[in-house]
C-alpha cells in the first residue's frame, strides 16, 4: 500500500508485482523529465528520461508515462525485485527562465520478498 503525510511517502509491494510511482510536477513549461533512484547512502542515479514531445518511453523493466494536460508523470517498474528498493524521485527541467533540474518530493519503494 501507499502512504503520504509528513514523512517520506512510502510504497510497499511484493516481489514480482508491478510498481507504479506517481509524480505531479509544477511547471507547465518544463520540457524534460527524469526519474532518479536513490539507494541508501548513495547519490541519485538516472533511471529513465522523457521529453515533453513524448507521452511514453520504455526502458528495461521500466516505463515512464507523461501526461502534460494534468502535469503528471509516472514510473512503472515491472516484476519488482528487492534490488529496486530505494527512494525514487522525479525531476523536471525547464529551458525557459532559470535552467535547473527541480526534484519532486520522493517516494520510498520497499519490496518485500
Amino acid at each position: 500500500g501507499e502512504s503520504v503525510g509528513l514523512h517520506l511517502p512510502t510504497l510497499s509491494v511484493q516481489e514480482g508485482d508491478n510498481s507504479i510511482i506517481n509524480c505531479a510536477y509544477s511547471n507547465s513549461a518544463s520540457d524534460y523529465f527524469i526519474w532518479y533512484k536513490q539507494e541508501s547512502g548513495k547519490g541519485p542515479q538516472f533511471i529513465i528520461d522523457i521529453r515533453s514531445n513524448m507521452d511514453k518511453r520504455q526502458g528495461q523493466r521500466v516505463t515512464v508515462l507523461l501526461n502534460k494536460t494534468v502535469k503528471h508523470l509516472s514510473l512503472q517498474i515491472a516484476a519488482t525485485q528487492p534490488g529496486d528498493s530505494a527512494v525514487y524521485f522525479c525531476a523536471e527541467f525547464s529551458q525557459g527562465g532559470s535552467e535547473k533540474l527541480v526534484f519532486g518530493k520522493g517516494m520510498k519503494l520497499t519490496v518485500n520478498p
Partner: protein
Amino acid sequence: DTAVSQTPKYLVTQMGNDKSIKCEQNLGHDTMYWYKQDSKKFLKIMFSYNNKELIINETVPNRFSPKSPDKAHLNLHINSLELGDSAVYFCASSTAGAGTEAFFGQGTRLTVV
C-alpha cells in the same frame, strides 16, 4: 573510475566552524551543481556553475560560498556552521543547457553539533 567524486563522505563539526567539501568530475561536463538533501530526503538545488561561472544561486545564505577553480571542480565552503546546516550535500554535473541528465556524487553527510 568515479565520474563525480566528492570528499569527505562524512563530516562532523562544531557550530561556528568553517568547513569545505570538494567535488570533482571526470566526465568533461561544463555544468556543475550543489544540492542539499534534508532529513525528509527533499533535494534542493543550491548553486549551478557553467564553465566556472555562477549561473544559479538559490537564495542560499552567504555563509555558503562555492568556488570553481576549473570546470572539473566545484568546491563548497561553509562559514560559521549552524545546526540547521546538517544535511547531505550532493555535487552533480551535466552537459550544458538543452536539458540533460545530471550525474551525482555519493554525497557528503554533514553533521553540525
